[in-house]
C-alpha cells in the first residue's frame, strides 16, 4: 500500500461470534476516501454483522477498527456517529408523524436539549444538502406522506446532516423501484466525488458491478477478496465460491428418479402478487411439481419466495393467476382450503407461524386435524386422542422431549422442526411446501430433516423446497427454479445444473454464455 492518505475506515482481523454461529471471521478490508465500496455476499455471509460493527452496534470479539488511520473503539452507535460513520438501515428509523426537518434534527449533534429548534435554519441546511447531492425532499413534509424512496433520501440526508464522512447503506435498493435505484446510484457517486466514502451492501451482482469502485466479497463470514472487478461473471463465482466440478451431492445416491408420467400435484400458473409494501412481489410465476418430485426454488431472500409460499398456504392473496392442487383449483386467500386439498406447509418462521409455543407438543401436532374426527367430537376435542397420537408421532419422528405434554417453546430447533414435519407429513399430503427447512439447525438435525424430505418424496409427495442455501437445493432437488425479483428466470434439471449459471441467475444476470 503506497496510499498516502489513510483509508476512511478499515477493519483489521475482525471476528464476531454469536452462539452457534461465526458471523465474521478474520475480516480485513478498507474503504478509501472518495470511493464507493461494495460489500457483496449471499445472505448469511456476514455483511450486516460487519456493518453493525463499523457503526458501533456490535463490538468485535477480536480485531479492531481504524478511522482515518487511527484506532477506534466504539462503545455505542453514538461513538461511531461522532467519528463520522453513518448508516442507512434497510428498515428506516423515522417518526412518521414528524416532519422531515424534525426527523433530521432529532438526535443530531445540533439538538439543543431543552432548547428550541431553529427549524428554518435546519430546513435551509437540508435544502442545501438536498441540492448538492440531488436528493429531492421537502423539509416540511410529514414522513408518513413520503414514498419509500423519499424516506430513504431523508435517511441519507440525516446521515449527511451529521457530517458523516462514511455512509454505510444496507441493501438500499431492496425497497426501491428500478428508476429510484438509478437515481440513488448517481447520488452515491456524487457523494464519493465530494470526498466522502460510501459502503454499499448488496447481493445484486449487476448493481454492484456498475456502481462500486471496489468490491469486497464476503463468504461464510470471511472476506474472500477485494477486487476492482466489474465483470459480473467473476463476481458471481467469487460470491458463490464453487466451481461446477466441486459441487457436493452427498445425498445423490438416495434421490430417486421421478416417473415422467407422474401427475402434477402442484401447478402454479402465471401467479402475480404484491408484497407488504405494495410493490410487485411475484411477476407471472409459473411452476409445477410432480408427485414424488422435489423442486427447489433457489434465490436470494426477498425475491418473492415468501410471497409465493404464503399464497400456497393461503396466508396471502394473489392478485391474479391460478394454483392447481392435483387438478383442483386453490381458493385464493383461504387457509383451510389448502389443508383440505392436502397441501402441507412448513413455514420459515417455525415458532411464530408454525407452532403455538405455549401449547404442548401433542396439541401442536393436532393443529391441523382438530376439526376432524377422531380428535373432534363436536363440540368437544378429545385430549386423550391428541395425546395418544402425539406420543405416536413423537416416536415415529424421533422428537426428543420429556413427554408429549411438554410445551413446544422448550424444544431445541431440531426438535421444533421435527414436530412441524411430523404434523405436516402425517395425513397423506399431496404436496409439501417447505421454506428454509434447515436454517439455524445443527449438522445432525440437518441430515435428519434432509432424509425426511427424501423419504417423503420417495413415497410420492411432491415437494416445493424454498431455500437460500444453494447447497441444500442442489443436493435435494430434481429440478431447480431460480427466482429473482418475483420472476422464475429459469428451471434447470439437476443433471444440467451449473452452479456458475445458477449463481448468475440468482444475481439477476440472464444473458451469459457459459
Amino acid at each position, binding site marked *: 500500500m503506497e496510499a498516502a492518505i489513510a483509508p476512511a475506515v478499515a477493519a483489521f482481523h475482525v471476528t464476531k461470534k454469536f452462539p452457534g454461529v461465526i458471523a465474521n471471521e478474520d475480516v480485513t478490508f478498507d474503504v478509501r476516501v472518495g470511493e464507493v465500496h461494495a460489500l457483496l455476499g449471499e445472505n448469511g455471509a456476514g455483511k450486516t454483522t460487519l456493518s453493525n460493527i463499523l457503526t458501533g452496534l456490535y463490538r468485535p470479539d477480536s480485531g479492531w477498527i481504524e478511522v482515518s488511520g487511527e484506532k477506534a473503539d466504539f462503545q455505542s452507535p453514538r461513538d461511531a456517529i461522532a467519528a463520522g460513520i453513518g448508516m442507512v438501515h434497510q428498515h428506516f428509523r423515522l417518526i412518521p408523524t414528524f416532519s422531515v426537518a424534525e426527523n433530521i434534527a432529532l438526535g443530531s449533534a445540533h439538538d439543543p436539549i431543552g432548547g428550541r429548534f431553529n427549524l428554518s435554519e435546519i430546513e435551509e441546511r437540508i435544502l442545501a444538502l438536498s441540492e448538492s447531492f440531488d436528493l429531492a425532499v421537502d423539509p416540511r413534509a410529514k414522513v408518513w406522506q413520503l414514498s419509500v424512496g423519499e424516506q430513504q433520501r431523508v435517511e441519507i440526508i440525516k446521515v449527511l446532516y451529521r457530517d458523516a464522512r462514511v455512509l454505510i447503506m444496507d441493501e438500499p435498493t431492496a425497497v426501491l423501484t428500478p428508476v429510484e435505484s438509478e437515481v440513488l446510484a448517481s447520488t452515491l457517486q456524487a457523494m464519493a466525488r465530494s470526498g466522502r466514502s460510501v459502503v454499499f451492501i448488496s447481493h445484486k451482482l449487476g448493481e454492484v458491478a456498475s456502481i462500486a469502485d471496489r468490491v469486497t466479497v464476503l463468504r461464510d463470514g470471511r472476506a474472500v477478496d477485494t477486487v476492482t472487478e466489474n465483470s459480473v461473471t467473476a463476481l458471481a463465482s467469487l460470491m458463490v465460491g464453487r466451481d461446477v466440478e466441486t459441487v457436493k451431492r452427498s445425498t445423490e445416491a438416495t434421490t430417486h428418479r421421478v416417473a415422467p408420467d407422474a401427475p402434477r400435484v402442484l401447478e402454479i400458473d402465471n401467479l402475480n402478487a404484491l408484497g407488504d409494501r405494495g410493490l410487485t412481489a411475484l411477476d407471472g410465476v409459473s411452476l409445477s411439481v410432480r408427485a414424488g418430485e422435489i423442486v427447489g426454488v433457489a434465490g436470494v431472500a426477498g425475491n418473492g419466495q415468501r410471497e409465493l409460499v404464503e399464497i400456497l398456504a393461503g396466508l396471502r392473496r394473489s392478485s391474479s393467476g391460478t394454483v392447481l392442487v392435483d387438478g383442483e383449483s386453490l381458493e385464493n386467500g383461504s*387457509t383451510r382450503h389448502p389443508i383440505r386439498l392436502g397441501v402441507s406447509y412448513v413455514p420459515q418462521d417455525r415458532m411464530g407461524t408454525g407452532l403455538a409455543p405455549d401449547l404442548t407438543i401433542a396439541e401442536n401436532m393436532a393443529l391441523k386435524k382438530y376439526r376432524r374426527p377422531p380428535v373432534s367430537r363436536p*363440540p368437544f376435542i378429545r385430549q386423550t386422542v391428541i395425546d395418544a397420537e402425539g406420543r405416536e408421532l413423537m416416536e415415529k419422528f424421533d422428537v426428543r422431549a420429556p413427554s408429549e405434554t411438554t410445551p413446544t417453546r422448550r424444544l431445541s430447533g431440531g426438535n421444533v422442526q421435527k414436530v412441524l414435519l411430523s404434523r405436516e407429513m402425517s395425513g397423506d399430503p399431496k404436496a409439501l411446501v417447505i421454506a428454509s427447512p434447515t436454517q439455524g439447525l445443527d449438522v445432525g438435525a440437518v441430515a435428519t430433516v434432509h432424509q425426511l424430505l427424501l423419504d417423503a418424496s420417495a413415497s410420492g409427495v411432491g415437494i416445493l423446497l424454498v431455500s437460500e442455501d444453494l447447497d441444500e437445493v442442489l443436493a435435494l432437488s430434481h429440478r431447480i427454479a431460480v427466482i429473482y425479483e418475483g420472476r422464475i428466470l429459469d428451471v434447470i434439471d439437476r443433471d444440467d445444473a451449473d452452479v456458475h449459471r445458477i449463481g448468475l441467475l440468482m444475481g439477476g444476470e440472464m444473458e451469459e454464455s457459459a
Partner: protein
Amino acid sequence: MRGFGFRLEPRSDLPKWLPWAVPVGSFLAALVVGAIVLGVTGQNPFSVYARIVDRAFLSEGAFSGTLVSATPLLFTGLCAAVAFRIGFFNIGGEGQFVMGAIFGSGIALKLGADVPGVFAVAAMVVFGAVGGGLWGLIPGILKARFRTNEIITSLMLNYIAAVIATYLIFDSNSFWRELSGSGAVFPKGKVIPTVAWWPKLDLGSVIIPFGFLLGMVIAGWLSVLQRKTRFGFEMRVVGGAPTTARYAGMKPTRLIIVVAALSGALAGIGGATDIGNVRHILDPKGLQQSGFGYAGIVVAALARLNPVAVVFVAILLGGITNAGYALRGPDFPSGLVGVLQGLILFCTLGGEVLARYRITRSTRVSDVETALESA
C-alpha cells in the same frame, strides 16, 4: 441503554408452583404495603385487618353479605378473564355491566307484575346478556375489522354507557324513570315488580343469592368450554399465537368477535344480577360509584384468568368490599378498600413480571442490542 444496570430476561422454564405462588405472594405483598399506608395514617394495621376478616367472613351474616358483594365482581371478573385469555383487552366491563343493568331492568319493568317470577328472572338474564353482549361487540368488531385498539374503544364506551344511564333517569322522562310520588321531585328509577326480584337460597347459616349461583354455574361452564371444546382449543391458539392460528385454518377475527360478545354478555348478566339481587331499580349514581367493571380486571388478574379461580377471588375481594361497607365510620377511612384493591392489582401485575422474567445485571451495550434483535 448504557448506565441502565439491570435488565429483565425471560425465564425459559416456569416451575409448577409458580402459578399459585404469584397471586398469593402478590396478595401478601399488597397487605404489607397496605399496612404501611395504614400505619402512616395513624391506624393499627393488625386491628384493621382483623376487623376486615371479621366483618367479611366471620361475624353473624357477614358471609351472606360478602356473597352479595362478590356477585357483580364474579361476573365482571369472568368478563375480563375470558377476553384477556385471547389477548382481547376488554376494559369495557364497566359499560357492559351498565348496559346489562339497563336492559335487565327494562325487561323487568316491561313484563310487569303479571308474569311468573321464573319467567321474569330468566328474561332479565337473557336481556342483560344481550345488552352487555352488544356493547362488547362494538370494540370486538372494530378490532377485528379495523384493528382499532380495544383498550381505548372499550374504555370510551364505558363513559357512553354511564351517560346513557344518567340520561334515562336524570335527563329524560324515560320508561325507566319514576315520575310519580317522590320521583316527581327527586329523579330516580322505577322499582321493578317484586316477581322479578331474584330469589335467594337460604342455607340457614348463609344465604346465597341466585345471581351468585348462576355465576358459579357459568364459571364451571366456561372452564369446560376453555379446556375441553374445539372453541376453547381455538381460543388457546389465538390467544398465544394468532399467526399460527390463521395458518392452522382458524379464523382469529371471527373468534375475537365471538369472544368480545361473550365477554360483554357476562358483564351484562352481572348488571342484571345487580338489579335483580340488590338494587331493584336502575341507579346510575350507584353503579358509577361501585366501579365493578374495573374491579373485575383485578379479579381476573389475581385469578390468572382461570374461571374457577375467579369465583374464589371474587369472594375474597367481595369480602373486603363488604367489610368496607360495614366498617365505614369516623375511625375507618372509607377510601381504604379502594386503596387495598389498587395495591392488590399493582402487586399482582408486578408479581407477574417477576415470575416471567428474571432480573440480571446487564454487562454491555452490545449484549442488550443482541437480545433486542433476537427478541
